[in-house]
């Protein structure tokens, strides 16, 4: 028997789509069924990707050795972190070469607006140091020489940290966030700081002072083939889709191969949401597993540094290098974290996958619903127990989140008064007027709006009515998860987003608050409960855009979560992005680097 997932028809009528179990070998069967369901996804994409990676330069008609080498580097950029680390170790590529190629690609993909700051000079220096270590035969580990990017709400000593806000434009932190320091200590090469919604408040990466991030898939062959412009007269410029957010810059950076891994942050879904829209893995670890020290907070009690990578294995590598107690963050676990390699999932008899019915939320697209069902069947066919479960308080989650989030925002943003750092208004009538002007000039409407509502909830007369109540509801939401896990469920399987990425032009029709409420709906409950959750890219939508599914695990059971996620990743063979538009958007300034572009 398949698992029933209710389908909402357009008229609001609720129908039940019963998906029968697919007989036969799970993987091939899955792929077949999947592609049949979504015929727009070309067959064999994954295979082509693997060939390309294995045989760089093939089919390009280039013969010159230098060009071949460049092509090799270009293909190298598309490998996984673990693969490129092996290449560094074997000397097939040097850290400096790798860094240069990434920097070049960042330039040719500048139109994506994924980066706010590119730290070219320091990155090259770090690569040089790494190269020396490799030459001595003493690399610091798997991350040595690996180009990475960091969301611009993590403090980086010597490199601007802006939060995409006028308030912190030009702000150079005197210290590194613990996660940044850990990456640098392990030899990673920090390419730059990625774009986001101002202070991570948003779900599109459209509301930052440096402009919106463009989803690399907007320029993919897959999207171009499937999403023909409504009319030719219509400006092609308006066809690009958003990355999701708020860690859109990091997701775009990983998705467009300008780095091998990126840090995001996840408060209500800010890592998983853009990961889903950009077709990359987005891991939100358990609250307290990774230090928040140096992460400029949105909601302290929910923020978690997020990990964006090309595959689940890479996420485990990053997790292993970042997790564990930090004396500078009192909310981190006391115990040491043991890094792990993800084992292969073989025994399904003890695995129980829960399908929370409440995640069949209004507005969930039918193709995502179908994907979700098929994914459930995939596990069932493999021998796992798949059960429908209920998280009854889920529907209160968004409202509750809104109260808690804005209240903490109001509190956290109070420090931006223009005195110690950041923007300071020229207004000098009084200290108070200077504060007011500084904050008016420094924050965008979204941030100011959240501060305003947060302060309303924190008013003495409202505190009990809203904040305390929201905290109680939060406890109920967290308890829902506890009960489900206690009932024997190991992992919850849900969609990550309601639909694939929206056109920018459509996205901005709605205000930030409405958008955030819709877009966080499937992701933020995990933040409320502090649970680990991961987006695994699953398939392409009818429009040729990535769609992901989310796995939510037990607290601090990342290994189990990633084991299941890796198995799933292997089954679905998510296609590699085929980028074709680089040249068109390339200004031509970096002529020699074009050969490093996608193909």
């Amino acid at each position: 028997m398949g698992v029933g997932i209710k389908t909402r028809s357009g008229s609001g009528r609720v129908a039940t789509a019963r998906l029968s179990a697919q007989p036969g070998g799970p993987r091939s069967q899955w792929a077949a069924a999947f592609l049949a369901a979504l015929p727009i996804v070309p067959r064999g994409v994954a295979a082509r990707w693997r060939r390309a990676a294995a045989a760089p330069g093939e089919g390009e008609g280039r013969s010159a050795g230098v060009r071949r080498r460049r092509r090799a580097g270009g293909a190298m950029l598309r490998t996984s972190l673990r693969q490129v680390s092996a290449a560094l170790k074997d000397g097939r590529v040097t850290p400096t070469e790798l860094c240069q190629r990434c920097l070049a690609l960042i330039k040719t993909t500048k139109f994506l607006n994924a980066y706010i700051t590119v730290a070219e000079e320091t990155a090259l220096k770090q690569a040089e140091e790494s190269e020396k270590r490799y030459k001595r035969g003493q690399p610091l580990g798997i991350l040595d020489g690996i180009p990475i990017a960091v969301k611009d709400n993590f403090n980086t000593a010597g490199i601007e940290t802006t939060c995409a806000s006028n308030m912190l434009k030009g702000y150079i932190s005197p210290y590194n966030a613990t996660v940044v320091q850990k990456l640098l200590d392990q030899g990673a090469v920090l390419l730059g700081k990625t774009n986001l919604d101002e202070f991570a408040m948003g779900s599109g990466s459209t509301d930052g002072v440096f402009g919106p991030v463009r989803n690399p898939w907007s320029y993919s062959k897959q999207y171009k083939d499937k999403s023909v412009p409504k009319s030719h007269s219509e400006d092609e410029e308006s066809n690009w889709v958003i990355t999701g957010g708020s860690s859109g810059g990091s997701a775009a950076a990983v998705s467009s191969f300008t780095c091998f891994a990126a840090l995001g942050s996840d408060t209500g879904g800010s890592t998983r949401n853009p990961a889903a829209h950009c077709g990359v893995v987005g891991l939100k670890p358990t609250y307290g597993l990774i230090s928040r020290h140096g992460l400029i907070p949105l909601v302290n009690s929910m923020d978690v540094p997020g990990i964006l990578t090309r595959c689940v294995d890479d996420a485990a590598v990053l997790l292993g290098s970042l997790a564990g107690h930090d004396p500078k963050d009192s909310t981190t676990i006391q115990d040491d974290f043991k890094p792990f390699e993800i084992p292969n999932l073989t025994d399904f008899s003890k695995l129980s996958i829960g399908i929370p019915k409440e995640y069949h939320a209004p507005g969930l697209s039918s193709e995502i619903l179908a994907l979700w069902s098929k994914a459930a069947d995939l596990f069932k066919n493999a021998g796992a127990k798949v059960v429908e479960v209920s998280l009854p308080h889920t529907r209160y989650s968004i409202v509750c989140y809104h109260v808690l989030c804005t209240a903490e925002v109001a509190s956290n943003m109070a420090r931006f008064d223009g005195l110690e750092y950041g923007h300071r208004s020229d207004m000098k009538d009084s200290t108070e007027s200077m504060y007011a002007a500084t904050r008016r000039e420094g924050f965008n409407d979204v941030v100011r709006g959240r501060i305003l509502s947060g302060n309303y909830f924190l008013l003495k007369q409202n505190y009990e009515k809203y904040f305390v109540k929201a905290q109680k509801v939060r406890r109920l939401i967290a308890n829902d998860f506890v009960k489900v896990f206690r009932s024997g469920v190991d992992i919850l399987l849900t969609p990550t987003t309601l639909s694939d990425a929206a056109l920018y032009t459509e996205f901005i029709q709605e205000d930030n608050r409405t958008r955030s409420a819709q877009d966080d709906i499937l992701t933020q409950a995990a933040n409320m409960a502090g649970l680990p959750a991961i987006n695994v890219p699953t398939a392409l939508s009818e429009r040729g855009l990535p769609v992901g599914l989310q796995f939510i695990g037990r607290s601090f059971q990342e290994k189990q979560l990633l084991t299941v996620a890796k198995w799933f990743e292997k089954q679905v063979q998510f296609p590699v992005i085929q980028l074709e538009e680089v040249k068109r958007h390339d200004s031509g300034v970096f002529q020699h680097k074009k050969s490093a572009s996608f193909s």
Partner: protein
Amino acid sequence: MAAAVAMAARGCGGVWRRARQRGAGQPGPGPGPFPRGQRAVACNARGGAVPAGKSGLVPWVPVVGLEIHAQISSNSKLFSGSQVQFAAPPNSLVSFFDASLPGTLPVLNRRCVEAAVMTGLALNCSINKKSLFDRKHYFYADLPAGYQITQQRVPIAVNGSLSYSLCIDNKMSQMVTKTVRIKQIQLEQDSGKSLHDDTRSQTLVDLNRAGVGLMEVVMEPDMCCGEEAAAAVRELQLILQTLGSSQAVMAEGQLRVDANVSVHHPGEPYGVRTEVKNINSIRFLAKAIDYEIQRQIEELENGGTILNETRAFDSKLGFMPEPNLPPLILYDAKSLPANMNHQQVINIDWIHERLPDLPSVKRKKLVEQYGILPEHSFTLLNEDGLAEFFESVVKQTQMKPKKVIGWILKDLLSYLKQHSLTVKESPVSSFLLADLLNLLEKKEISSPAAKQVFMELWKGEGKTPLEIVKEQKLGLLQDQKELEQICQAVIDGQENEVMAIKAGNQKVLNKLIGLVQKKTEGRSNPVLVKQLLEKKLSE
């Protein structure tokens, strides 16, 4: 109305009485002369009314509660590693966290928690094994984060009491002991300091103090006058200093007192409270509270109302749990987990066992051990190091402690006070004083000579008492014959006096003793002289 200005004598534990007339005039700013107004005020320790006395007016019951901020004595701040130091160059002790740089997080200082636990135990509080931190929001230039991390809902210690003593009518012999309930002790951050420069229209901010650990001790309104409040604060100060949990020097802002003051008629609900803030000495605290009590009474009797003036820091914004600090968990011997790293836990029982003797216990011991008067034990403890000085002298001399205490309090202490010196700065060490008292005890010098030696010692020239005695020939005449001769000479020269004595007027004998003393330049033992004179006169 203002023509006659009365000063209310502070009559704690008794009646607020009419006092002597003072000249007309408005009270100056700050704690100064007492305000105008002829008011009959009554109070006792628990706010019970006492008849107003002659005035015939309905008596007023003043109610005083205190909120005391004690800076914790620790090397580093409450949530950061910055050093704590008084009068360092501005902004030289500021960590990233203290300056509220974005992304920084608080990390609780173990020493501050221990200090608060010690203080809580010393004040008979129950220590909460789980306490929480909250953010209190307000915008102020010296509060960089826009909120103060404090413990509002569940503080570290609750429900304690503090016993303090004070003397009635300024008579040391009439001491009463009272108790004030301690509502709670909470850990919180100190703010920075801001200075407004009006001429240049700028605000200068120094964050050295920002984030220093404070214990806020909240006392219930169990006091009824400035004197009681002052005595309670003084006792708390002594306790903190004994524990070492705070240096509690008011002049350096390590102990800051806010008083809530209200007045009401007996049997009626408490009146509207006003706050007396930022008092920097205990003496002014008493005066400021009494001033405020008088002001309120006068206001009310003139048909006015008391307004609770909005606090400078008050805002409509409330509290929020500090999300970056997990609950503070303390253990006792019972709850202590077996394989817990001791560096990571605080054991209340362990701290309890190691508490030093508190002032009240020390006083009791002094009284019992040395047979001194209770009020003397207060004086000994009131001066930092004086009790130790006293005990050290006692150990080194044969003189009885009851006599030693006189020297300590009447001579040493008054000299120190005259010269505004602390005990530690005394030019006369306990060793020298003991030496001197030993000479006196062995009857090698007379009491007046001893005073002379003491004055010499005060100069701090490094001479021993014996050297001074020799140099200045202050030693008692040890030659009995010589003394007899001097006595005889005095008797021979004072016929009239001798007649009077023989006629029965024994008082005149003192004159003869005095004359002998004069002749011997104070080097004779008056007791011996008296004996010799009496013997000769009866011959």
